[in-house]
Every structure is written in C-alpha cells, then in structure tokens.
C-alpha cells in the first residue's frame, strides 16, 4: 500500500469519526438521562424495587428517556458515590429514586447545588422542606410528617386520649413523631425511639403493657413493622393500633399476616381510589409485573408521570422552563388531586385506610379522608415562592 493511500484511509477515518461523533452528540441532546439511585438489594429492597417498577412503567413508551438504575444497598456512602458517578460520568439531567431519608440527606443537597433536578419518589425529610428547600428539589410523595399528622388527626376523631408512640431513631422517625404530635390532642403514655433496622420489640412491648396507654401509634417501615406487628399480636395486648401506610402496605401485608387485620393506617394513595389514572395504573401494573402495586409503586409511577408532563411542556435544555413545568404538575396523578406547595412538596388528601381481606389476600380499603388538601408545616420556612 502506498504512503498516499494510507493517508487517505486515515483522513477518511478522521472525518468519518468526527461526523459520527457530531451526529452522536446531536442525538444525545434530545435524550433525557435519568439517574435512579434506589434500594434493590438487602433489607428494604422491596420498596426500591416497587419505586423502580412504577417509574419504569410510566416512562416505558418514551424512547428519549434513558434511565440508569443503580442499587444503593441502603447505605449513604454508596448512594453518594453513585450520585457522583451519575452526575460526572453518566451526565444525567435528573436524579430520582432514593427511599430512605438519611440517604436523601447525604445525596440531595450536593446534587441540587450542581444544578441537577432531583425528584423524590419517597423520602421527604423536614430538613429539605423548610430552610433547606431548593429550586431543583421536588418531592412527589409527601413531606415525611404528612401521613403521621393524619394519623394524629385520626386518633383524635377515634377518641384516643393516651397514646404510646414509637419510631426508629433516624430523620424520618423523628419527623414521624413530630408530625403525630402536631395533630394529636391527647396525652402521651410514652415515647420511644428504637434502633433503625431493629427487629425485636419485646422490650418496647413490655413497656407499652406497663404504660397504661389506650392506643398505640408506630412508624416502623419495612421489616421492622412486620416484626413489631407479629410480636404485638402474640403479646396479648389488645389496644388499637394506628400507623402510617408503610407498615401495612401491599408488599408487607402478606408477611404480617392476620395480625394486621382491622388496623387503621393513613396513606395518600390506595388501590381502590376511584379515578381514571389510578385504575389504569393498577391494571397496567398488575398485568406487567403480576402483583398488586404498593404505595411505593404509585409514587414511582407518579414521579414518572410528572417528569413526562414537564418534558411535554418544555425542554430539558431550558432549566428554568423545565423547573416551571415541573412545578405546574400538569399530570393526572394516581392520587386524583395533586399540586405543589411553594416549597415543592405535594398538597394532597390523606386518607384513612383499614386492612381487610379480599378473598385470601390482605389489602387496604379507604374508610375516610383524614386530612383534606394537606400541605406541610415547613412552607413558611422555605424561601421559594
């Protein structure tokens, strides 16, 4: 081969490569990259899997949305590493997915300051709702206090006067008890923080028995609640139990068993909510994944729907326009009514549900509305308008 022909080949390669790179870049500009950091392995993975499945169900027909899903193993340090990698090397536009408030506190403040939009499908720590609110942070689920506030309100209407309350010792646990106390008017027979991830509640149940309480409120998400409910049922104490939906959700009820029957719990969503978006979601989720959706799945789905609505009305390259489009929340939520308060957390109805049996399957049905159009307690502390 002569010298010239080698040169020509090289030239073709350079030009061709350059063009390919250019075209490739063009194509990439239209693609929206979403980074999802969520818990997919170990304890609590059911929650992350549901959020992921709900989100992917919402965006599955949209080829221009590219989702990178990574497992945080419920460890804050791993979540931070994943976020750094997604922002720096995957160049994501939007982050989402985190389940646990302590992980959210580790990831979200740094990410939103790098001008990444974060859509929270679950965690809503109070620190990110008040002074720490940010124009790039949107919570699509709830502010952490919300469901517990409704539980406190329900306890008043049920006539409870002396409640024993307990939650794990981490940001969401503290938000939970604060939220409950904000609305509950009776006395506290006792107040306990347990270790996050604790499974055995013999010591706590003994104290409940000795406290003379007339009711119990607890927030113990995931496997913690399963252990508590089973051990509580065996203890022979017969006091009414109120809790947020997290310990009575579809994924968990099977493991709790009949111990959960009749328990009142508060939720912003329920499978039997009567609106078009929810019916479509429940039936599509069932046919795609072969199981009933949980509230986490509905939150993941709503997060996806919110993102789609914002992308339909704006472009990701125009950050201000994109944020405004998100804030309008022009999508049909599985919860029916949904809009953002000025600190970009939802204003929504919170329902009281009861655990019932449909045939052999334990599930929930709505019995009343706990709080109507509930915003959150931290709106005024947030500088966003």
């Amino acid at each position, binding site marked *: 081969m002569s010298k010239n022909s080698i040169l020509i080949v090289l030239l073709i390669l350079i030009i061709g490569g350059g063009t390919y790179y250019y075209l490739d870049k063009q194509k990439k500009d239209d693609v929206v990259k979403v980074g999802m950091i969520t818990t997919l392995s170990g304890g609590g993975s059911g929650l992350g899997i549901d959020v992921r499945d709900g989100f992917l169900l919402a965006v599955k027909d949209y080829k221009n949305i590219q989702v990178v899903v990574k497992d945080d193993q419920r460890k804050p340090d791993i979540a931070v590493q994943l976020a750094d990698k997604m922002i720096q090397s995957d160049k994501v536009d939007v982050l989402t997915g985190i389940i646990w408030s302590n992980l959210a506190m580790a990831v979200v403040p740094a990410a939103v300051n790098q001008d990444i939009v974060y859509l929270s499908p679950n965690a809503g720590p109070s620190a990110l709702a008040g002074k720490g609110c940010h124009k790039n942070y949107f919570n699509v689920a709830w502010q952490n206090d919300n469901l517990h506030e409704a539980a406190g309100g329900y306890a008043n209407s049920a006539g409870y006067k002396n409640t024993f309350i307990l939650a794990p010792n981490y940001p969401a646990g503290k938000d939970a008890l604060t939220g409950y106390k904000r609305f509950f008017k009776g006395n506290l027979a006792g107040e306990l923080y347990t*270790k996050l991830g604790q499974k055995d509640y013999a010591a706590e149940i003994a104290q409940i028995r000795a406290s003379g309480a007339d009711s119990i409120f607890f927030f113990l998400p995931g496997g913690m609640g399963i252990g508590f409910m089973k051990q509580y049922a065996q203890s022979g104490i017969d006091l009414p139990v109120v809790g947020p939906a997290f310990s009575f959700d579809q994924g968990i009820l099977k*493991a709790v068993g009949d111990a959960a029957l009749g328990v009142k719990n508060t939720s912003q969503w329920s499978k039997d909510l009567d609106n078009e978006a929810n019916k479509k979601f429940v039936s599509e989720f069932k046919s795609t994944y072969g199981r009933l959706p949980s509230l986490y799945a509905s939150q993941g789905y709503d997060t996806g729907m919110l993102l789609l609505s914002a992308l339909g009305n704006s472009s990701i390259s125009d950050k201000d326009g994109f944020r405004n489009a998100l804030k309008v929340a022009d999508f049909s939520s599985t919860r029916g009514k949904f809009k953002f308060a000025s600190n970009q957390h939802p204003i929504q109805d919170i329902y009281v549900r009861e655990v019932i049996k449909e045939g052999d399957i334990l599930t929930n049905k709505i019995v009343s509305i706990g709080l109507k159009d509930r915003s959150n307690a931290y709106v005024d502390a947030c500088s966003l308008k």
Partner: protein
Amino acid sequence: MTISLFIEQILNGLQFGVMLFLMSAGLTLVFGVMGLINLAHGSFYMIGAFAAALFAELTGSFMIAMIASFVAALFAGALTELIIIRKIYKRDHLDQVLATFALILLFSEGIRWIFGAYPLYLDIPNSLSSSFNLPFEIIYSKYRMMIILVGIIIAIILYFLISKTLIGIRIKAGQNDREMIGALGVDVTKLYTIVFSLGAALAGLAGALIGAIQSVEVGMGEPVLILAFVVIVIGGIGSIKGAFVGALLVGITDTMGRFLLPSFFSYFFDNASATSIGSSIASMSIYILMATVLIFKPSGLYGGKND
C-alpha cells in the same frame, strides 16, 4: 417502673441472649478450631429462616419447618465447606474475609432470585401464640419462653459434646495443635466439615426460630452476625462457654440499655430528647461492654483457656 416490668425485661434479654448463643456457637468454633473468619455465617441464619418459611407453607407444620431449617442450613454449610471454605483455611485472614464476603452476596442474591425481594410469611404455631401468667403479675410470651428453653438445652448438649465425647476432644485438640492431631491419625478435613456444618445448622435453626417472630427477608443475617462477632470477642474466641456467657451478657445489656437509658436521661432532659439520646447511647452499650471486657481481659472472658 414495676418489678414485673423489670423481670419481663430480664427475660427478654435472656431470650435475645440464647438466640445470639445459637448464632455465635458455630462462629466461635469455626474461628477457634479452624482459624477461619466466616462472614457468611449470617447467610446460614437466613437460609434456615427461608427453608422454614418454605416448609411451613408446604406442610403447615411448625415442627417440620424447624427441622427443615436445621437440615437445610446443615447441607448448605457442608456444601460450602466442601466446595469453597476448604480451599481457604491456609490463606491469610484478609483472603478469608474477601471470599466469605463474596459468599454473602451470592447467597443473598440467590435467595432473592428464588423467593423475591419481599419478606416471606412465617408464623408461630397457635399453641405457642399466647402468653403465660407468671408470679408477680408477669405476662410472658410462651414462644419466647420456648426459645429460652431450646437455647439452654442446646447449650447443655454442646457442652457435653465438647467435653465428654471423642469428637469434642478432637475439636479441642484441633484448636491446640492441628498438625499433631493430623499426625495422630485424626482425619482433620472431615472434622472441619463436621464442625462447620454443625455451626451452620445451629445458625439456621436460630434464623427459623427468630424469623417466626420477626421477618424472613434477604439480608436478615448480617445485623445478627455483627452481634455474634461481638459475643465471641467478649467470650473469648474458640470457647463455647465463653460464647454462652458472652451471648447472655450482650443480650441482657442491650435489652436493659434500651429499656433503662431513656428513662435515666429523662431526669435531665425533656422527654423527646431524653428518648433520642437514651436510645442512641443504648445502641452503643454492647460495644462499650466489649471495650470494657477487652481492657481487663484482652483475649476475652474465657479466651486462651482450654474448655
């Protein structure tokens, strides 16, 4: 605070302690006899619980479920020893940590692949689901009482096995001088397989017993594994007696710490911060206990002794 509440909490601590003993017995033998750091011990706890949940669902019998947990973990232990662990006895501790950590990932993801990510249902039999009325108006769960009894019975059996039988003598001898008993014609490899699988089986039984009152889920073994390591460090590595005493100490310290510290701090702070501070310090209590024991007995309570 009443006497009955106090005694009930002691019983709770005892129950937690004997459960930890089942977990740490195997761990301490494997560490002491074979010099192997086995992080995958928690996986056998999980395997036992899942086997129990599966067989409880299939047969409806709690007894069969418990036997299944023991047998399943025994087999899983034997297989793991034959295929993998056997190859790493002579390696550095760091290599063992790495290899057994990989086993945790394999077991956890394998179980999740078979059973799914959501917790399984395993409940205690109806005959044990109620409570006793003891003197001093103490009400205590029959099931927890049964756990305490099972734990003590197994502790007694193990004590006789180690101190009175041939295999026990060999295990102790292996702890002291592994080349020598090999030279004396004891099949050391077989001995190791037996010890490893027995330890795994006990962990599996503990997982099933506890799974029935807590939750049967992937990753349930690792938190218990950490506590089991604390127990064997306190008790002295390789000592069954040490594991028993250490387990009870850890169980009672943890339970009483959780119970007493928040009320102690409520003398100084308002209720909300007292419970928060109290429970934070309560979760450190067993590590403080471990540090204190190590200051006075650097090789643990029964470490270095031959029992």
